[in-house]
């Protein structure tokens, strides 16, 4: 099962990952981080397909993706 971890303090709240996620499982926080941003959160991890699109589009290296077992790569990146 893929695991997506968003580092709260790296996130600048740009919402690009929210729009990139095909599963629509990333949402913005209601709270402000210490940096003053609403930050991205994975709200439904089990539905994550590990496609990494969120990580690929994140300009701030805030997203780390890990996978358990075989993870298919849908594209050569």
């Amino acid at each position, binding site marked *: 099962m893929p695991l997506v971890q968003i580092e709260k303090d790296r996130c600048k709240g740009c919402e690009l990952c929210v729009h*990139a996620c095909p599963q629509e499982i990333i949402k913005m926080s209601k709270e402000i981080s210490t940096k003053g941003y609403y930050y991205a959160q994975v709200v439904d991890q089990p539905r994550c397909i590990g496609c*990494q699109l969120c990580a690929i589009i994140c*300009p701030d290296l805030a997203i780390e993706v890990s996978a358990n077992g075989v993870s298919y790569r849908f594209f050569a990146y």
Partner: protein
Amino acid sequence: MACKIIFDRPESMTETITHYCPGCTHGVIHRLVAEILDELGLRERAVGVAPVGCSVLAYNYFNCDFLEAAHGRAPAFATGLKRTRPDLIIFTYQGDGDLASIGIAEIIHAANRGEKFTTIFVNNAIYGMTGGQMAPTTLPGQVTTTSPFGRDVANVGYPMRMRELLSALRTPAYIARVAVHTPRHIIEAKKAVRKAFTYQNEGRCFSMVEFLSTCPTNWGMTPVEATQWVQDNMVPYFPLGELKTPEEEQDAD
């Protein structure tokens, strides 16, 4: 079975959080370059040349030797470096004000001489660092602080397409334009970066990848709106793709 990380920071980047504005795609472009340095095993021979522009601090984020050139002069700077130490892998990282305005002489001549370095050209259609003035790449009608009524092509001409201009030179080169406003584009972009550094590593030719990038801050948009603006406005004027490769047959003359 252990959980293994399939996406994280490339070794060629530091942990430092960037100073870029939220959603600014400079960050994506940095990462692509770093990933390719990693993947091609070039980090230990790599020397980056930062421009003057928002990415002047790029050296804080790359985990390789780095220098800071004068505004627009990174290609001359890189020429000096590479001619002195051809064994190094040199790349310049330049904005559109830097490369297409003040530094256009240096990039054209470096490309024309076929200098064996790679230019990462970040075209965000504006001067980001200085607060949003018109760039040579600013689109017709686009509002900036020095074109408050929109760029008037009758007065200041059309936006410059650097990919096209450099491709008009006879000397063999690899010249491509890519975008990073969607994951799909980023994936394509990475291929171009790989090619660019591969050509350099093989000592083949000058290589440049032009990135269509966002500047949500100075465009006055949210990051998401900005990516849409790239698609709707920049891509039509700045067509994506490779325009020149060293393999292509030269015209007979």
